[in-house]
């Protein structure tokens, strides 16, 4: 069985998530944590081999591990306030991964928008709306078996596709013939402001290259995004409850 190693982390991960999901009778979280750590170790052994650069590997494992752990705790925590805080931690870890992908501006922007604005607003709404600290509906998951099985089947399919794909360069020589992901020359000749593809890979996340690409190649999309923001603002003001109807 060629892809048999795929089954171990997926099944262990499913077991851990299913064990940790909130239900009426609380289960011991230590057992779920042990199974989850075993799943992460099996995943590291099968799918996340070290690249060789020890600093980069260490940071990648640190950030991805904390992202996955915080996401697991977010979807399994019974208290919505703690869940929102775990989501903030997930955001910070993902921003660390952005930094590894040489995207410093994007990392800072994500921290400001998500951790600074979205999570704080969610926390405000939770604290305004949550009158009883332990609401009944937070203590029981909806269809935990079906939902977790379906999600992990999808995750297994994604991992299987990645394993079969075998990389852009190197292992799969016939990738170009089979119409897989192929590196294309990104310079669009029609636009004279278009940034030529940079040879220095640490430069692609800088403000200069990013702004050049945003305001030349994607100028119409930027205008469209601004319009969407304006419409969303108007819609939020129109939907939000009026003071005459009694706010929170």
């Amino acid at each position: 069985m060629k892809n048999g190693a795929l089954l171990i982390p997926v099944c262990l991960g499913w077991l851990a998530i299913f064990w940790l999901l909130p239900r009426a009778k609380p289960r011991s979280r230590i057992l779920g944590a042990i199974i989850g750590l075993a799943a992460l170790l099996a995943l590291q052994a099968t799918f996340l081999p070290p690249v060789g650069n020890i600093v980069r590997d260490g940071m990648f494992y640190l950030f991805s591990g904390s992202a996955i752990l915080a996401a697991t705790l977010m979807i399994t925590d019974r208290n919505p306030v703690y869940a929102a805080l775990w989501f903030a931690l997930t955001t910070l870890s993902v921003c660390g991964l952005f930094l590894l992908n040489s995207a410093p501006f994007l990392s800072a922007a994500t921290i400001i928008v998500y951790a600074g604005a979205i999570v704080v607003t969610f926390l405000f709404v939770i604290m305004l709306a949550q009158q009883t600290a332990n609401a009944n509906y937070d203590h029981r998951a909806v269809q935990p078996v079906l939902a977790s099985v379906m999600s992990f089947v999808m995750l297994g399919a994604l991992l299987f596709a990645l394993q079969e794909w075998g990389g852009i360069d190197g292992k799969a020589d016939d990738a170009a013939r089979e119409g897989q992901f192929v590196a294309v020359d990104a310079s669009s000749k029609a636009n004279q402001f278009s940034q030529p593809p940079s040879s220095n890979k640490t430069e692609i996340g800088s403000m200069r290259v990013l702004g050049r690409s945003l305001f030349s190649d994607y100028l119409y999309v930027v205008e469209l995004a601004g319009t969407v923001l304006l419409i969303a603002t108007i819609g939020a003001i129109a939907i939000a409850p009026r003071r005459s109807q009694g706010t929170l």
Partner: protein
Amino acid sequence: MTSTALESQLVVGAILFALGMIGFLTRRNLILIVLSTELMLHGVSLNLTAFGRYHGNPQGQVFTIFVLTIAACEAGLALSLILTLYQRRKSLDVFLWGNLGEEDLPMLSSGNAPPHAKPIDPNADLPHLTPAGRAPSNPTTKA
């Protein structure tokens, strides 16, 4: 950047997406459902930046900026909607909104849903119009 590093990032993105999907399907709190969709968006943006780094062009990060914009719009709209819904039923339970049709229709959600709760203010479901002009005389009381 070697291909293994790219694949590792794709694996982490897929895991984040699957976890967000589980959260979206299993939680009953309206706010946590919206937060789970943001988790799925994180997985997608991780994929985008990894591919952008691999190809050496800024397009992946530009797309992530647009994802960020749409996420901000979505969060604002969802929160105002959740506030309106909470104001009507005084609860964040999504099962309270499992039946948007007539009250005598059967509920689609499973058995552990609470019974169809009456809104606390019976007029809260009706739109409020600003009264304008003179109040009309009622013909039935006149006779």
